[in-house]
């Protein structure tokens, strides 16, 4: 149905796509697999008309297809669900859907259409609800329904599961399979190998902008796929067995009011972190992860006795006092939170290392010592950059993340809190970061890893808890948990398991009716 022939796109200094050939058949779920920076996004943006290729051609149902803007692509029958939603929180579902349409029908008719499509594909949605009140999974449904209303013959999904619980992923897969069986082709962009093996009929693997292989993913192991993606054999992080030490960080009935309108309030959070422990905190994005990091790091303060570090009350202490006492943090957002985009790596080193590395005296900064420590981070964490004088935003995501994590780990924390340590980081860098986190735990530190990547948490954490709407489940040993239990913890329904199952079954029944 869609044929891509030797499409090439270069940016100054980078070849994003080099002579890419892909053919997608009708009713096929076709995966495009690759690391970050492999050229997946560029390719789908070319198909969707957001970017024009330098050379090459595309054919849609045998006819030459030159999308010069997304409207042309939509009219041809190509629809796309983006990784980051483009929805207005203060508008209703129906209003959001109508904003994305060329000729929206009347409000009542649109609501009817939305209900019809959402029932048909097992995507329950109330057209009159405000998007601001929807979960990430429900928001994605809005995007999907918006696409389906255009009766697309090709649906592009960019990393659709990164915001979903395992149960929501199952529902999504049901929908996609049903669409495919009705003849819609689906282009599925992901780096999650198990998903692709389960869902997709075909896979094209990109590396550094080039097609390096194509295969039937169900016939390959996840490890084989990963090695094709990375182009070399993968070193899987390993950890020496240690037993948990004594408690080092205790959180007792922690509450935090939401700081902005669509923010999340933290409610009644209890946890105990031990020495040598990695506590994984899962959950779908926007359920209080940022807020939890901010109260633990000291950016938001709470009553003194809600957080204890080594038996000392620190709930009302500032970030630098906590650093001095041994608690360090690495926030999710690299540019603008963990690091200042337009400042050099030296200045960004000073940003958090001042207290523990004694980088200033009487208010005067020792740039010499700061540079020495910055160089050390760059060397030990293999940060690829021409030098410590380069500004943070000139680094790739993976390299900046290695810098941010390295900056904290090399300060030898007793407790480290990290949020999304490997988000948007290539596989090799992610493995290196996980390894360094595990090594730190082996050496006696207690670590909290907040992440939306379940595989990551299962791989590295001793105990697992989940955040849902600002509430946290009690941590449980990771090795005793089944995928179903984890999904229920993420859905915030640990006590009332049946209702979720009922809902799940109901949705599936709807899908089949």
């Amino acid at each position, binding site marked *: 149905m869609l044929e891509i022939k030797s499409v090439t796109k270069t940016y100054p200094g980078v070849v994003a796509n080099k002579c890419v050939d892909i053919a997608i058949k009708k009713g096929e779920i076709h995966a495009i697999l690759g690391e970050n920076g492999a050229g997946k996004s560029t390719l789908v943006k070319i198909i969707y008309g957001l970017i*024009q290729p330098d*050379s090459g051609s595309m054919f849609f149902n045998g006819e030459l297809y030159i999308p010069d803007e997304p409207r042309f692509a939509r009219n041809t029958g190509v629809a796309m669900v983006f990784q980051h939603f483009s929805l207005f929180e203060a508008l209703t579902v129906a209003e959001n859907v109508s904003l994305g349409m060329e000729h929206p029908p009347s409000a009542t008719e649109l609501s009817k259409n939305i209900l019809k499509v959402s029932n048909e594909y097992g995507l329950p949605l109330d057209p009159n609800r405000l998007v601001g009140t929807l979960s990430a999974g429900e928001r994605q449904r809005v995007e999907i329904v918006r696409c389906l209303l255009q009766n697309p013959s090709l649906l592009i999904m960019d990393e659709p599961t990164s915001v979903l619980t395992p149960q929501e992923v199952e529902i999504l897969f049901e929908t996609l399979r049903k669409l495919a069986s009705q003849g819609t082709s689906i282009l599925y962009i992901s780096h999650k190998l198990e998903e692709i093996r389960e869902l997709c009929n075909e896979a094209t693997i990109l590396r550094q902008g080039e097609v390096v292989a194509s295969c039937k993913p169900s016939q390959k192991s996840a490890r084989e796929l990963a090695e094709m993606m990375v182009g070399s054999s993968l070193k899987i992080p390993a950890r020496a067995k240690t037993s948990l030490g004594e408690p080092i960080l205790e959180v007792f009935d922690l509450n935090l009011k939401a700081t902005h309108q669509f923010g999340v309030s933290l409610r009644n959070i209890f946890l105990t972190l031990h020495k040598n422990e990695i506590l994984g905190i899962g959950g779908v994005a926007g359920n209080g992860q940022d807020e939890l990091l901010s109260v633990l790091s000291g950016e938001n303060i709470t009553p003194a006795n809600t957080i204890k570090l080594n038996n000392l009350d620190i709930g009302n202490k500032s970030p*630098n006092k906590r650093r001095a006492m041994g608690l360090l943090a690495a926030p999710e957002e690299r540019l603008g*939170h963990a690091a200042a985009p337009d400042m050099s790596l030296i200045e960004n080193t000073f*940003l958090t290392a001042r207290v523990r590395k004694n980088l200033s005296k009487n208010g005067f900064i020792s740039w010499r010592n700061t540079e020495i420590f910055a160089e050390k981070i760059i060397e030990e964490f293999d940060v690829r950059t021409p030098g410590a004088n380069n500004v943070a935003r000139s680094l790739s995501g993976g390299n900046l993340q290695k810098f941010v994590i390295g900056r904290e780990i090399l300060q030898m924390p007793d407790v480290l809190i990290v949020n999304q340590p490997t988000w948007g980081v290539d596989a090799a860098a992610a493995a290196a970061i996980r390894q360094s986190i595990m090594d730190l735990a082996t050496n006696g530190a207690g670590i909290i890893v907040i992440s939306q990547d379940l595989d990551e948490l299962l791989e590295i954490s001793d105990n697992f808890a989940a955040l849902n709407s600002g509430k946290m489940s009690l941590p449980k040993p990771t090795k005793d948990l089944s995928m179903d239990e984890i999904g229920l913890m993420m859905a915030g329904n640990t006590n009332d398991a049946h209702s979720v199952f009922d809902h799940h079954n109901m949705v599936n029944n709807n899908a089949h009716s």
Partner: protein
Amino acid sequence: MLTLEKRSEPSQLWTALTPVLAVLLTMIAGGFLFIILGKDPFLALRIMFWDPLFDEMFGAYFRPQLLVKAGPLILIALGLSLGFKAGIWNIGAEGQYIIGAVCGAAVALAFYPTESLFIFPLMILAGGLGGWMWAMIPALLRTKFNTNEILVSLMLVYVAEQILNTLAIGLLRNPDGNGFPGSRNLQDYYSASNMEIWAGTGAHWGVVLALGFAVGFYILMNQHLLGFQTKLTGQSPRAAKFSGINPNLLIVVCLGLSGMLAGLAGIFEVSGPSGQITIGFNVGYGFTAIIVAFLGRLHPIGIVLAGLLMALTYIGGELAQMQLALPAAAIQAFQGMLLFFLLALDVFSNYKLSFKFGKVS
């Protein structure tokens, strides 16, 4: 099609070049302005930028004026630059300048006619304190009630002007002044007068202090925690909070410091070149200093140069008013254009312009 592309790193070249280009563009646009006003543009520009310094007749009078005008501009702009770096917008330096002058002069007038070495330092202290206090009003309102410091500090300029006018015809009026508004002339009161240090240069204590502060700010910006914190807060408020900076404390410090320097500029002015507290004592240094701060790239050395340049537009403008009968507003338009071109050209430090032709088929 013209498009702006973000640079991966801010261009050093453009950052340095922008002020020069802005001055050139201002001269060109200003030239057209003079043509519209029916004046010869080349003559007008020569009178404004050349004659004050090099003309045989006027040079001797105007050259010292350069430092006299540049001193307060530099002093105020230095203080403003710190807050501007952090995204803390003190627009009310004019008001802090007035209150500084009033407080300092009040101390002097209270001691009149006692002669003592301690009077002048006390006046300076009172001037700095007065400016600081006036700036604390927007600072506290901002930190306690989250009011907008731009509006509050600006509005307080007009309050300060009213206070100045009231005092000039009331409490501080010269008892021997035959009922005219205005205080005693401090230049005639030895202990309180801010004399030229070297005759014929225009350099008084305020000028010396301004240059001293420029050196101090250079060190502050590059080597001191406060400089780092202001820069970080301006660029990335979330990263600043993460690094442990207390945003409210920074607001109080930045506004306080800029208010204090504006107050100092005020007291040096009233005890020196101006001499007395009177209606219309302020001539807009506090507002012009905003332009100086930006024209100088918020960099201490740049501010010194920009202060001298703006001082030149003041005295050149005065000369042009006399010789060409240009309206005073033309000079303000001139200064405004300079800021406009500067900010407009600033885009090119972070973005580059690129042309795109046609589409790929």
